[in-house]
């Protein structure tokens, strides 16, 4: 049904634009309404700068225009793809994000790869009752440990004690492993729990019994039937968890002293660097909307019932 699918996709893309506009507006409103002069923050709490210079900076950034005018200017620039210029970093927001994005992407992608592998291992390796118990305990620990603490423990053991990984080295794959693992552990714990539950539920269903009765082996049953069932839940979850990976990057980037969007976001919020904060809000909105879309597309692929058009989305 290509026509229905195309219409469905168009509708979803229109929704995506709405989400981005909504995020841009909400972000702008929030930043306009909170008290405090960004110029004061920009210069530092104890800075000695005359009112004249402050007024000049305010005029330079258009901060003394009425809010509605600023909102319209802002939307106008957004349409042309211009995110504005950072107050603090004195460069365009697109290049700030562009410079930091690769570091965060590397981190989150490797973390996702670790998380999925660890989840798969935990699910597949532990299928007996006792091993499931042990693995569940490990999962629970991984999920409930604060990222910050996990990172510090990993550093203490693998960097300071064993010396396997560097902390003062930058840019190498070696330096990426521990931060990615820190981010991956809690996520792996959640995914494997959900995956195992899904597998158990699926293998208890009549079709599984039928398949086994027809002589299908356990491995083929898992690969062709039950895993597919269980994966449906996990896909939604992974989509959501990628979002938390980006959020978790703030702490991990600080502990491991890595560059990246997480730290830029934190600084931008503390320094009231409005253009950067807005740029990152938009990036987050677009990312989540795209992830949602990807999850839905994957769903339709995994579950053929959704493609008939009669099933609810």
């Amino acid at each position: 049904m290509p026509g229905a699918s195309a219409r469905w996709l168009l509708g979803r893309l229109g929704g995506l634009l709405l989400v981005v506009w909504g995020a841009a507006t909400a972000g702008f409103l929030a930043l306009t309404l909170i008290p405090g002069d960004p110029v004061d923050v920009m210069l530092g709490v104890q800075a000695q700068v005359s009112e004249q210079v402050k007024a000049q900076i305010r005029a330079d950034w258009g901060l003394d225009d009425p809010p509605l005018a600023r909102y319209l200017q802002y939307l106008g620039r957004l349409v042309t793809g211009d995110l504005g210029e950072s107050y603090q970093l004195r460069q365009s927001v697109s290049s700030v994000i562009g410079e930091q994005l690769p570091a965060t992407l590397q981190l989150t992608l490797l973390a996702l790869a670790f998380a999925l592998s660890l989840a798969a291992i935990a699910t597949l390796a532990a299928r007996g009752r006792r091993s499931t118990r042990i693995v569940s305990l490990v999962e629970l620990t991984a999920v409930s440990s604060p990222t910050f603490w996990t990172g510090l423990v990993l550093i203490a053991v693998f960097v300071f004690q064993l010396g396997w990984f560097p902390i003062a080295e930058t840019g190498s794959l070696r330096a990426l492993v521990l931060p990615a693992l820190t981010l991956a552990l809690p996520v792996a714990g959640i995914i494997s729990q959900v995956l195992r539950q899904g597998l158990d539920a699926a293998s208890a269903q009549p079709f599984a019994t039928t398949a086994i009765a027809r002589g299908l082996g356990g491995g083929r049953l898992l690969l062709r039937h039950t895993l597919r069932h269980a994966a449906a839940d996990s896909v939604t979850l992974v989509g959501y968890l990628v979002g938390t990976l980006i959020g978790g990057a703030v702490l991990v980037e600080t502990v491991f002293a890595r560059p990246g969007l997480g730290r830029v976001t934190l600084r931008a919020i503390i320094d009231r660097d409005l253009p950067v904060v807005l740029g990152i809000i938009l990036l987050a909105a677009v990312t989540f909307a795209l992830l949602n879309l990807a999850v839905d597309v994957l769903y339709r692929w995994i579950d053929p019932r959704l493609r008939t058009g009669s099933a609810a989305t």
Partner: protein
Amino acid sequence: MPARYPRSLRTAGAVAALAIAGLLAGCTAASSEGDQQSLTYAIEGANLSAGHMDPHSSQLDVSALVQRAVFDSLVAQDLDGSFQPWLAEKWEISEDQLHYEFTLREDVTFHDGEPFNADAVVANFEHVTAPETASAQAASMIGYSADGGSYLGAEAVDEFTVRFDFSTPYAPFLQAVSTSQLGFYSPAVLDEKADELKTGGPGISVGTGPFVLSEYTPDQEIVYTANPDYDWAPESAEHSGASDLDELVVRILPEPSVRTGALASGEVQVAGNVTPSTVGSLGDDITVNSVELPGLPYSLYLNQNNGVFADVKVRQAFQLGFDPQDAVDGIFFGQYPRAWSILGPTTPDSYDSSLEQRPAVDVDRANELLDAAGWTERDAEGYRTKDGERLSARWIAYTPIPDDRASLADVIQSDLKGIGFAIVREALEPAAYNEQYGPKTFDITDWGFSGVDADLLRSHLHTDGFQNASGLSDPAIDTLLEDAVATSDPTERAALYTELQQWNAENVAIVPLYVPSMITAFSDSVTGLTFDLYGRPLFYGVQVQGS
């Protein structure tokens, strides 16, 4: 019975687990040690990336700290407070103290090959005072103000002579030009890249220093490499010529335990901003250098234009009503001494040690003072009242508030409750803090302000002081501060500052609490490391023994 999984799948899981473990372990390649002398210095400095790489415009200590590698000064200040020739061979101060004339070295060149001369000096001072630079610190250090300060300007007398003019005598000038805040950029950079100085980087942070900034990854590291042509160290330096270190890596590690861990495990050789709590855990092969910061200790500022602190008796009672000694000792592991005066003991030519004899805490006297001030009733919660109003002061602090300062505030709050004095604390993020700080709608706020010259009191106590959080306006105090800044004789100056410190002890505009120290730890492999008056490490002249 649930489906059993075949052995092959379980094996696959185990293989995958082994593969991951292998990937983790396989990354253990030994890092190669060349003949190169390389040193890594770990700092906290996370906010350098927020446009603070230019010491001319930044007010952060960390900017001056790291960029010292790149920027030299006209004069050098010794640990005893005296001044030595550096980029200036000699200098003369006119009898009326309104003109400073510096004779510059003729053999100095910038990293980009530009000559260092009087024009370069003038261009740099023009950059510091230009409105576009919006200098938060450097301009004020030379007495410049857009609304008319002492500083009038710099002028090239001839190729290697430069003169500075002042409208009123300004004694801290030599000290100011000894700092990296007033270091020198290549004039070519000032011309072509003025917009990028705050962001900094190779080809932008270009000075005359012993190191060249060669690589910069914001929030991660700055790599400085030796300047092979360097031959103009201060006379007082023990080393001469190019630096023995081929490479100085400043690594930004915001988490204190990671900094000290990296030092203990040998990944870095020097760690800065070491916290008092981690000093004790460092091993025997680590040396700890702790330098008490000169300037204003960490203090509370009592706003006398708002609420209960208008009455001097209430301010005196506040000061006598709590005992920070045990709290300071405990919270800072004995690393930071209790402060007795509004100047730290290491501030050159000014500290009044007689204040250490004054009684620090006297609850009975505090109660008498409050009774005398009319706060005689008590409400249901035990706080004092007058005409139905509770004796209460609002303390605003800007976030992030370090845990140790929060603990200290707890102690103060609970001690003062004992004399019926309510302290209401508010933690505000910087923008919200400014909303209150600007119009001075608070009773108490807090900070420490390090600086080598006691003149920093002027910004805190003068009617026009930009950090006059106490809301003080006293013509006699203004005169004292103005006389002190215009006096270059050390004994006379010390007498004036003694008078100011005594006055504050009696009138309690500022309540000093503790003297912070700059704590730096370094491994035994490092030799020749020296520190300036602020406790900042100086890497010129350092050698590293191969590990």
